[in-house]
């Protein structure tokens, strides 16, 4: 069975954009392809004439600090991300998440860019990136622009990016400063079902015994990955407590739109677990602010 007609291995972002713009029929970029190939085979993605492979573009495999930000190439395989001391230092929540995506073979292939472009509301990498306030570097033929990550999502599986005109080159993340830490956790069946029942990422800034600032992302809690801004507001400037303050739980349950999904979990289960998951993740992140402080000493 032939799944596509033409396959091009692009060497630069510019070449990939030109190939996508010029190709006849339907064309789409492919990075790791672990989601795209499956969706094509199973008919969830409309048939494609042309695939433009981004996986070997050097710029898109970089991981470095540039311009005071951590840049992570969208086509960097997750196993390479997981091994990076830089990413470990600046984006612990992303490390937690990337280690949990797929199995070893999938992580050898799959990319953060693909995780985001697939636009699932509970994509582990996406949820972690959201909590880190990441921006996306997007290339078009005529220009490049930086877009807040949250603006890339239109609905479940629907990216705002135009596959014929736009390529997600990579992500820029703020560097970790003193008193800051992040964490990611998820509720998951042990094996066999690829998407989390519930996942949650926390980034926070500690000031003595208080949460000076906080960002929370949770999925699947709506049609797109959700920044839980009301929950953040309920926790911001408050003292850290080992049990979740009732107003934070109330905010989380009010702004999350949990649903029942046939093979994963009921809405009721997700509602019951959301606060537990938030408290657990918060605790890990809080503990990490202390660990980091001790290390720095």
């Amino acid at each position, binding site marked *: 069975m*032939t*799944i596509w007609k033409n396959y091009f291995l692009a060497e630069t972002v510019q070449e990939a954009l030109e190939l996508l713009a010029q190709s006849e029929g339907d064309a789409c970029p492919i990075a790791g392809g672990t989601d795209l*190939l499956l969706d094509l085979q199973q008919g969830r993605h409309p048939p494609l004439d042309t695939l433009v492979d981004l996986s070997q573009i050097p710029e898109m495999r970089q991981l470095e600090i540039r311009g005071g930000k951590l840049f992570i190439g969208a086509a960097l395989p997750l196993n390479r991300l997981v091994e990076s001391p830089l990413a470990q230092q600046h984006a612990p929540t992303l490390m937690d998440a990337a280690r949990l995506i797929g199995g070893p*073979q999938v992580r050898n292939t799959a990319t953060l860019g693909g995780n985001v472009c697939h636009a699932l509301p509970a994509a582990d990498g996406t949820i972690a990136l959201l909590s880190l306030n990441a921006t996306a570097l997007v290339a078009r033929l005529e220009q490049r622009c930086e877009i807040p990550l949250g603006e890339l999502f239109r609905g479940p599986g629907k990216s705002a990016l135009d596959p014929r005109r736009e390529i997600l080159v990579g992500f820029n993340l703020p560097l970790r400063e003193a008193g800051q830490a992040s964490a990611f956790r998820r509720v998951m069946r042990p*094996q066999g079902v*690829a998407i989390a029942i519930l996942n949650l990422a926390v980034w926070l800034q500690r000031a003595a015994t208080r949460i000076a600032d906080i960002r929370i992302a949770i999925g699947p809690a709506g049609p797109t990955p959700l920044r839980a801004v009301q929950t953040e507001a309920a926790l911001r400037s408050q003292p850290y407590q080992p049990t979740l303050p009732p107003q934070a739980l109330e905010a989380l349950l009010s702004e999350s739109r949990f649903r029942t999904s046939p093979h994963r979990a009921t809405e009721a289960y997700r509602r019951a677990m959301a606060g537990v998951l938030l408290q657990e993740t918060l605790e890990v992140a809080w503990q990490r602010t202390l660990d980091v402080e001790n290390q720095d000493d």
Partner: protein
Amino acid sequence: MDENNLIKMELTVNGEAVSMIVKGGRRLLDFLRDDLHLTGTKEGCGEGECGSCTVHLDGQSVLACLTPMERAIGCSVLTIEGVGSPTNLHPVQAALLDEGGVQCGMCTPGMVMSALDLLERNPDPTIEEIIEGISGNLCRCTGYKKIIYGIQQAAQELQAASPAGTVKESVE
């Protein structure tokens, strides 16, 4: 591009140069099984869950069911046919037999390829690291314990055979 979607597959498979004109637009798994008749690589679920189709692409374990065949052009592919031989099993294969880690055999090629990938990166893995290393491979027969013990035994043998700690895959 030919109208019949023919492409030239030029690559190294199990140490041998391959160059052939075949139909493109398929999975690496289809190329290996249907064109090269290397049927040791199994199709289990065909959707990236079971690990039966694990092969090495330029030294890294990947799922052949989720890899476009064109991506392998110019690369080196190692399949189970390139690991050991019936009369001279690789220590991982021998240890799986020895420990009773092979029952129906469907998952075995993928398990071996994952174990080799693990031991290449980590010649002396803990039990937890072995479990993580084969977490992308499903087995419906053994309950995993015998596979884990087999990999542990193979690691010890390989370590003893090469005290410098470097494990080389035996490519026929």
